[in-house]
């Protein structure tokens, strides 16, 4: 069965051109970029090129780019660094809807005597800016807020938030894993200190991430050892993946118009048509500013895992905010923070598109999903009046 892949916020297909770019660096050009000989040196040149390409996508300087192993590492490194450079500051601010890569390290800090404030969101998933303003103080070491939410696609006003943080001398970090490559980012005109991105969300392979570190921002490395990445991240470079990420970032810049054009058109058509056909459905965060590729739709009276497995019968790949898919018993923390009723949260499905999504893919979902919802509602003791 050919997959209809609409789960691009989970991971993406590696672009063929990206794969071609990285291919020689396994069996042919396998040198260590730190070596003195020509064989390693030529790899170093490609890494420099990759760094420039990543910087190009972000509007940054190459020396502000630190390669890491993943988005989670970048997030952890940013938070730990801020605490190390400001040992006297004992307060950390994040939001209730962060990815676990930020939320878990922050929550763990409470065990070490830190004060951790989690800023809430409104029913549309928008950050409570008043609460943020009230929370930041002279004790705050770092404010870490995601650029765009992985489940709903809701975009946070990170520039405004960064200004609030910096007014009190705190560092500002953003987990931009879902934003990079989907919406334009220009660090040259930003006051954000640190930014995390992940390769596999933008058609590069898994196992490569970046921490952007603004020039002049104090930093204490998470991984120490060798002198790689100017001693800011020790460990032999993942050369093939770094080179792949460079290519992926170059392509992302070129394809930005597609993301905000064709991809958005398909996303809008998908959710608009489903809203028209399926009764008792709603878009989570639909009134907020969102990524062009993401839609999270709540179908009342049915459960997400059942929807996903029936979609899977047609080759359609999506994901769910339901409890049953994860093995936990509560629906997603993001939907709960938004106050989405339990009745809807259990039946929430996320479709996340990419530049590989075709009109045919969208049409297949529009054709197959409504009967699935009806079928499950027919089986359900609830919502029988909406069959």
């Amino acid at each position, binding site marked *: 069965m050919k997959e209809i892949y609409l789960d691009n916020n989970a991971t993406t297909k590696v672009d063929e051109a990206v794969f071609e770019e990285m291919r020689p660096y396994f069996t042919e050009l396998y040198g260590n970029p730190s070596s003195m000989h020509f064989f390693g040196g030529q790899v170093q040149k490609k890494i420099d090129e990759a760094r420039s390409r990543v910087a190009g996508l972000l509007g940054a300087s190459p020396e502000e780019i630190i390669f890491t192993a993943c988005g989670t590492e970048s997030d952890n490194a940013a938070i730990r660094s801020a605490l190390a450079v400001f040992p006297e500051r004992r307060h950390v601010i994040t939001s209730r809807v962060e990815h676990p890569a930020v939320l878990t390290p922050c929550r763990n800090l409470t065990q070490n005597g830190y004060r951790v404030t989690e800023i809430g969101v409104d029913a549309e998933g928008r950050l409570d800016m008043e609460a943020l303003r009230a929370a930041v103080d002279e004790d705050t070491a770092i404010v870490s807020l995601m650029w765009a939410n992985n489940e709903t696609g809701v975009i946070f006003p990170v520039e405004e938030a960064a200004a609030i943080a910096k007014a009190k001398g705190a560092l500002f970090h953003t987990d931009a894993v879902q934003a990079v490559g989907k919406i334009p980012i220009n660090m040259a005109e930003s006051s954000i200190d640190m930014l995390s991105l992940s390769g596999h969300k933008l058609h590069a392979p898994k196992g490569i991430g970046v921490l952007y570190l603004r020039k002049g921002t104090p930093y204490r490395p998470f991984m120490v050892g060798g002198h790689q990445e100017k001693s800011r991240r020790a460990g032999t470079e993942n050369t093939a993946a770094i080179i792949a990420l460079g290519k992926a970032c170059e392509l992302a810049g070129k394809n930005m118009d597609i993301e905000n054009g064709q991809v958005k058109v398909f996303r809008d058509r998908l959710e608009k048509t489903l809203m028209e056909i399926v009764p008792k459905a709603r878009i989570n965060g639909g009134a907020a500013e969102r990524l062009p590729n993401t839609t999270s739709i709540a179908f009342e009276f049915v459960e997400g895992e*059942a929807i996903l497995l029936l979609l899977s019968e047609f080759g359609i790949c999506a994901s769910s905010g*339901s409890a049953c898919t994860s093995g936990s*018993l509560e629906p997603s923390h993001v939907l709960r923070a938004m106050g989405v009723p*339990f009745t809807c949260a259990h039946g929430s499905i996320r479709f996340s598109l990419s530049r590989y999504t075709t009109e045919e893919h969208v049409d297949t979902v529009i054709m197959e999903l409504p009967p699935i919802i009806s079928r499950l509602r027919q*089986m*359900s*003791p609830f919502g029988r009046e909406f069959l």
Partner: protein
Amino acid sequence: MWDYTATVKDHFLNPRNVGDIPDADAVGEVGSLACGDALKLYIKLDENKDRIVDAKFQTFGCASAIASSSALTEMLKGKTLDEALAISNQDIAEFLGGLPEEKMHCSVMGQEALEVAIAKYRGEPIPEHDSEHDHGHAYPDHEGTVVCKCFGITDTFLKKVIETNKLTTAEQVTHFTKAGGACGGCVPKIKELIAEVLGQALETARKKPEKLSNIKKMQMIQDVLEKDIRPLLWADGGDLELIDIDGSTVQVAFRKACAGCAASGNTAIMVQQKLREFVADDIVVEEVQG
């Protein structure tokens, strides 16, 4: 992705007996939208009200909840009510060729709905749910107090599931009943219930021998420490080590969370009680640093 058996997939994709029975003799409803799963079970008896001739279900829930409901209705047909009541949640899981442990609560939901339906048919009492949590799981036979407030689950129900499924950890209890799976506030209470059920099980299974040789006594002390006491401590992140046995004096050292714990004195008393219960009345437990 869950590793569902072919039978689970079949009963999910082609569920048997979906729907309602307008003139059903017995109807049992458990769960709610808020819980994430719910089952309404309809049972029709023959003219003599003797055997089940038809069973149908309506389920809101994941694939394994739907498959468990479908399996249950198939299993019920042709059975008397007493035979039906003998169906355990393990039987439902077995019929499906097994369920992932995290999904065992789906089979428990089937059995619960069955018990509620039959209790209602027979006019037996069904306990009031916690008033704040009207989506709670009902348990028909006994009174009980709500332990898990998030899912409205009572101690009576939990103890039964712990006992029949031979559960030994709070995590397993969550997988089978959902209790403790949301805020986690009741996990300590669940651990107490496990200890209580295990204690009861041991009491019925074992009797203290009349007189013990020293070697036999030492063996039994080691046995009780290994099988009964250490697992209880593990549940709280603690542990102990047997240092020495001298006649009836048992020296232990506490490890991990128990070491340096202010309550370790109480733990030593608990260990002594258990050993007196299962081995000999004259045992004295001493805590030593070792």
